[in-house]
């Protein structure tokens, strides 16, 4: 599936939810974009070559969970009154139902964006 470029997606979210901080939206979009590319196998293979089987598996599970669609991001942005709520909903959306491995890997990556 093709998604809009990162900058366009950020602009889209900013237009839909102008009350949300642009930095927060940008951080989440960049993470989701990377996970989409990771799940689709379109990232630079040099960056993941040589990873152990365990970390490959953890990455695969985590990237599938975090590869949200633009529609899902828009829904989260629309439903959020501020940046903190957006990040909380994003975290729930990604981690809800995720395997323990994916959860442990994604937790710090998501939490670092919280305000």
């Amino acid at each position, binding site marked *: 599936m093709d998604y809009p470029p990162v900058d366009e997606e950020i602009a889209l979210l900013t237009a839909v939810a102008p009350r949300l901080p642009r930095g927060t939206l940008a951080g989440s979009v960049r993470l989701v974009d990377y996970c989409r590319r990771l799940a689709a196998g379109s990232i*630079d293979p040099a960056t993941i070559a040589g990873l152990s089987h365990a970390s490959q598996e953890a990455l*695969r599970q985590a990237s599938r969970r975090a590869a949200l669609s633009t529609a899902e991001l828009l829904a989260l942005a629309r439903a959020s009154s501020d940046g903190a709520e957006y990040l909380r909903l994003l975290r729930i959306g990604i981690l809800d*139902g995720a395997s323990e491995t994916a959860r442990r890997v994604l937790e710090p990556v998501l939490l670092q964006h919280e305000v």
Partner: protein
Amino acid sequence: MSVTATPEAPPTAPEPAEAATRPYTPGEIEAIARLLLRDEPVRAQPGSWWRYIPAARTITYPPIFLQTWPGDRVVGALMHEVAEVLFSGADGLTAFAEVVRSADSYRVTPASVQLLLNAINDLRVNRLYLGGHPGADRYFRAVYLAGTPLERPDDFPEERRPAGGLPHHQYLDALTARWAKSLWPELVAPAVPDEVAGAVRRTGAAVDRAVACDSLAEFVAVVARDVLPVYSTLVAASRKAIAEADAEPVRSEDEPPEESEPEDLDGEREREAAPRATGTSGTGSAAGRDMRDVAVVEGEPQAPETGDVWRQKPTGQPAQPPRPDTGEQQDASSRRGWTAAGIYRVRSRAPKGPDYEHYDYVAAARRLEPQIRATLEGRPGQLGLVEILNLRRFGTSDPWRRPRRRLRGDSGEIDSDRPENLVVDPAVAFLHGSLRRRDDSQKDFANTVMLDISGSVVQKGYASRKFDMLVDTLVVFCEIHERLKLPYELLDFSDGPTVLRAFGDSVYAHQHVDPASAYVIKDFSYLVRAMYEHPHGETQEARALRQALASISKQRGLKTILMITDGISSDRPALTRLLWEVEERNSALPVGEQIRVLAFGVGLAEDEFRASYEPEVEGQAIRCSAAFLVPKVEALPTIICRAIEDRIRTA
């Protein structure tokens, strides 16, 4: 600043602390690093400490601390290294280079200048990272509240530092604590001497300006102009403190004065005192050698029989002139006579074993390179493992020769696992959701290397020839598996087994054996250090072997357990029973699926060893086990090649 989930969060969103209770595994840390770094061409891999190495495009993490550090602190340290990548990157070295080169003008060593720049730059990159990722606050807090020094001060040899630390190191610690306290007021800053506190006060504003710089060039300029002059005075004070510490006689705190024990042997005391005073074994350290040499000269003022030999360093350079002797010292030395000198001479020439608490795997691998190469490439009249395994896998010794194009549109690319077949980059294959590799890919051979670390092989703190040999054998085996890209498991055992490296950790992008010039030695120092730290009790090899059998049974291909032991078993009947079980199980399996145990004996107890691993049950030999005595490391290549070839031929 609250960074945890708000109370309104539904139960499906777990509290972060919940996930952090179980220690992170290396695989999880590498995955987190990848998600933090995203497209940055830098990867995380095990190492001795948290470090960003721009030239190697690598972040290293210490696996040994993953078990003991809280999860937040581990992630915090990782985030700091990621911040280094993002905000210093490879440009950092270039930007620092000019100031480091000008170190002489401040009468400071380049290493000390580099340390200053690194320490303040740490604060700068932390600030920038926290600015973009406010939620990372909890992770950084865990690092700095624990007082964990992420920057290791290694500009002065550790063994020469006086108690309490060097002033310029205290200064850098105080700067870090000051920055951390500004963010987390609950932090308790360590007390520092007035001289250091004054320097912190004088440079505080300049350091704040440097930390506030976004560009590296600006940062370097501020540090060089406003901080380095003050820092250089502290380095001078450190040098003075070291000189004063050197002038003190080397003596441990709990040891009574020399005169009270005239019967004690000088050589023995000096040799024991030096490592305790230095905190290291002193091997390979120039500073450590210097201290020991000076101590010997001081203790041997009258030794006409030995002539000038005792006044020379081992390198042939003249030693420092001895200090004027007191009458008491002369009396003591005359009582000792030449005996102490003789004993010292004999002992000082005895080879000293490696320091396993600071073991350097890479250096060991380089030392054993001839043995490793001989094992892989063979010797005249003896096939190497590369050829033996290729013949077994592909029926030819040169399977990767580029084939002719057979089909229209065939790109001619070669699949490393199956040369006649398919081509997709294996590194990305897993991302497509399906592993496109042949069923038995990377599983033609599966080996478990078991290492006996029982008390009969090693006791912590004591030199052990058996353990030296066991570690050398481990290095050879690790290198063979890594270079041949064979899946393997490493397991040490004494009272119980501990898995050091699981099968899942040895996955390779392809099976093509790289040329020796392209191979980079992985740093497995942490494995040897962990082995040395583990308890050394009884030799319960049957328990360990049972665990190894359980894990290797799940692997495909030719399964072999390589046991490195001295053969002195605590429960030989249990071992024999287990080997008999394996024998019976093998009889019901196809030949290719049978498990075999190859034991390599590193001790002198050959009879014990053979009785353990080549037992007879009711007069019948057990075929699943074979014993090979290793008299010295140089003999390993021949022994390993014969053992593996025999294993393959009889499979």
